[in-house]
């Protein structure tokens, strides 16, 4: 009680201490002043203690306040619509372990919807409800993939809050501008000071932020201290030039080709080769073109390859790694690097004025096709060349597209990323229609969310076919999970027909039918939920 509050009256504590001491020792040993020893002593003591206890409680006074907190910064963003705020609370309450059990059954996995919810809320620029901040910070603490979106949504008050709880320190480290020395990009002196004196992570953040705003200013800042940076720091800084890379960066990158560190040289060369007009790209084009030609003397025009016989100093200076990894021939290793770094625009001129499609279709002599096509794939990805990507991907319905062809699934996924969203979805839809879902997971991962209608339909049809064929349903749980998150919510109504439990084919795995039905049930419920979720975040329609 005494720790609650200030004391009551000056005379009481002494008397009370006396009572406590007597109670501890026992009335047989001690009699409090004002009472008589004997049989009634314990009862008298308790009477007195009861009176004092009630008096003490009745006379409690407030304590002195500790130092008050500085108010949290204002969050100028508009607050969430009430329904969206309630939805957020529900999504945040569905924490792993909260619902118990690994199997989801037909209930949607709400935690998996949180990233989408956050993305939509951020896109509309809403402020987080303050009372949701602790749960948001806890969620972001457990899942690093959530952090950028969660912290952006949580806003300035979350950083204020995070300073009060050691569990949330990560927010201060992770948040751009969360530290005390947050760079204001309009303040050149502040930027310079932070660049000169900041910690490594702060400097990377600063450089990245500045690069996205003013590419030339970021490069100039880096050039200023370039000579004095440590090798591993130079590598990281150089990497941050990848964003917003342009012809203006060439002189700096060309100088970096002479860097003391091999990794820095290789990165500079890689960046330069992504600039088709750079001098390095031109040098690589000459080298690569010398190795690849069309042999017209054969019955069918055929590409012939003469891989380089040596890796000279000039090649090394341009970023070609001279030593092949174990198990690879040196010459093919060098060839791959030359073709990868040469501008793809070189090839139509070099190979008889053919289009990328025609070039890819040409036979390649002496088993060089794999090496050559793989190098072109890397070049198409690096140079973000959609025409070459399209050519290398080929028709999605082509038989070799589904199997281990010249181009692996991982390479296809990377090539797809260079196409625009609609074309990407159409290609993957075509792939699924021919080859089913078993190889599609990686390709689906690069498609834009929500899936375009043809892609969504292809996935649902393929799932339906798999179910009707009595396929082992657990092998589709990955695609199911993706579909829950990525299908357009408006597809939900088309799925109703799939909810019935079908007759189980004789060769089906036991329990498969009900598992399929449960999975479709969850898919539909999740889609409806996502639809409602996004509608709640949409601004109210103005009355007509």
């Amino acid at each position, binding site marked *: 009680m005494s720790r609650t509050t200030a004391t009551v009256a000056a005379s009481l504590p002494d008397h009370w201490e006396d009572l406590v001491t007597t109670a501890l020792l026992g*009335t047989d040993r001690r009699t409090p002043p004002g009472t008589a020893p004997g049989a009634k002593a314990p009862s008298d003591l308790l009477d007195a203690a009861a009176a004092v*206890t009630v008096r003490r409680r009745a006379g409690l006074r407030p304590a002195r306040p500790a130092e008050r907190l500085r108010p949290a910064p204002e969050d100028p963003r508009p607050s969430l619509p009430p329904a969206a705020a309630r939805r957020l609370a529900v999504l945040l309450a569905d924490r792993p372990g909260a619902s118990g059990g690994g199997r989801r059954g037909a209930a949607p996995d709400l935690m998996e919807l949180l990233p989408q919810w956050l993305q939509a809320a951020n896109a509309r620029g809403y402020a987080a409800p303050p009372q949701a901040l602790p749960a948001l910070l806890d969620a972001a603490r457990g899942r690093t993939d959530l952090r950028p979106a969660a912290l952006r949504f949580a806003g300035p008050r979350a950083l204020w809050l995070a300073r009060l709880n050691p569990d949330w320190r990560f927010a201060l480290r992770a948040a751009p501008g969360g530290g005390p020395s947050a760079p204001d990009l309009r303040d050149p002196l502040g930027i310079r000071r932070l660049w000169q004196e900041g910690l490594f992570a702060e400097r990377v953040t600063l450089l990245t932020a500045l690069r996205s705003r003013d590419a030339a200013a970021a490069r100039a800042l880096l050039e200023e201290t370039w000579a004095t940076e440590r090798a591993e720091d130079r590598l990281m800084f150089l990497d941050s030039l990848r964003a917003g890379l342009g012809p203006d960066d060439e002189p700096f990158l060309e100088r970096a080709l002479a860097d003391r560190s091999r990794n820095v040289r290789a990165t500079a060369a890689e960046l330069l080769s992504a600039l088709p007009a750079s001098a390095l790209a031109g040098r690589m084009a000459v080298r690569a073109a010398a190795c690849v030609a069309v042999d017209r003397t054969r019955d069918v025009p055929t590409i012939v390859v003469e891989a380089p016989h040596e890796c000279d100093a000039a090649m090394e200076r341009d970023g070609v790694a001279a030593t092949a990894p174990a198990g690879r021939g040196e010459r093919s290793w060098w060839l791959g690097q030359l073709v990868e770094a040469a501008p793809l625009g070189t090839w139509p001129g070099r190979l008889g004025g053919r289009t990328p499609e025609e070039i890819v279709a040409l036979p390649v002599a002496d088993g060089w096709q794999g090496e050559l096509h793989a190098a072109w794939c890397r070049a198409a990805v690096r140079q973000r060349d959609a025409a070459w990507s399209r050519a290398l991907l080929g028709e999605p319905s082509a038989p070799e597209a589904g199997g281990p062809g010249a181009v692996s699934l991982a390479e296809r996924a990377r090539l797809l990323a260079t196409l625009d969203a609609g074309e990407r979805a159409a290609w993957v839809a075509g792939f699924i229609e021919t080859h089913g879902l078993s190889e599609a997971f990686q390709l689906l991962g690069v498609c834009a969310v929500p899936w375009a209608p043809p892609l969504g339909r292809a996935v649902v049809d393929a799932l339906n076919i798999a179910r009707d064929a009595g396929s082992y349903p657990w092998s589709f749980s990955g695609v199911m999970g993706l579909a829950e998150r990525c299908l357009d919510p408006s597809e939900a109504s088309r799925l109703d027909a799939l909810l019935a439990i079908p007759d189980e084919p004789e060769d089906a795995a036991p329990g498969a039918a009900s598992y399929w039905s449960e999975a479709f049930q969850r898919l539909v419920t999740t889609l409806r939920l996502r639809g409602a979720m996004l509608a709640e975040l949409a601004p109210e329609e103005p009355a007509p």
Partner: protein
Amino acid sequence: MTDQGGCRTATQVPERALDATSDELREPVSDTAGGEAPTPAPPVSPAALRRARRRAERITAGATELEQRLADLLRGGLISAEQAGASLWEETAARMVDAQAPGLANKVRELGSLASAGADAPVRLLEECALLHLLAQAWLRRDRLPEPLAATVRSRVGLTASPDGPAIRDDWLVLARYDISDSRLTTRRTWLHGRASGRTALLLSYGAAGRAPDLTLPVGLAVDAELTPYPGAGQPRMALAERFGAPAPTAVRPPGTTTSGALARYGAALRDDPWRESVPVTLDRVMPVPDGDGWQLADADEDHALPVTAAARSRPGLWRLVALSGGAPVRVFGECGPWGFTPLAAWPPGPGEAVPLC
């Protein structure tokens, strides 16, 4: 530490009908906002009266035995009680269960857990022994107490009463709802604030251990309902008699006071019920402030503060309160007692529904 008048009565549910008849005196509690007549007492059969008398005799025997044990304890000293350990209290508690005085039994059990309360243990132990002594004495002399106080004593000892006050129909804002579980029972406490009557009401509902009680009123919404108070001076417990319509959003907030106002209210409540361990209070314009390992609620306009109770300190609700406040004054509803304030609900500085903190 959060018990109120009737909250032990749950263990006596089968005897509810019987206990109702033992409250011969049925004075309506003042404050008749509902303006309706008290529910008439059910007819009392001679057999029921006989049973009630027999139970009262057993409780009297139990209270007498408890007094004897407390006297022995104080004669030998609390130090020796600490050495005897929890079994001493467990045995006494079992005797009180035999005496059909579950209120006394629970109190005794709490004494057993106090022995490990750390540096404060001797003080807390003496306080609780003294209050238990006061309760036993009050039972033994209940004939000489004014009826409202006698009703409080009956309820504290563990006799179940029936709600008998005049029904109050009001828009009741649901302030807070939380469950307390022990090995046998889950008790759900729901705090309500009446918009027109201005009264604060406590609803209790029970579920078997591990099962949620069925009364679930949505925090932050208002329920048009008729409540009936339980007997006992100044105690907030009421029963839900009837609901009219679905819960609806409301802009009503209970009026608030300062931290010193809250303590004054607790002090005043002790006049009616010296065993009260907390009172429901709404604080206005207070802000959470870190204080060493703990937290305080500090008045924005006065140099006063209440500590947040240790139990509330470890709940996630405290962080919701801190986030909601953002260093600015907010309105907070909670339970205020000698060990500080337990926040249960808060309202944002701007418009908005109550935010649950428990």
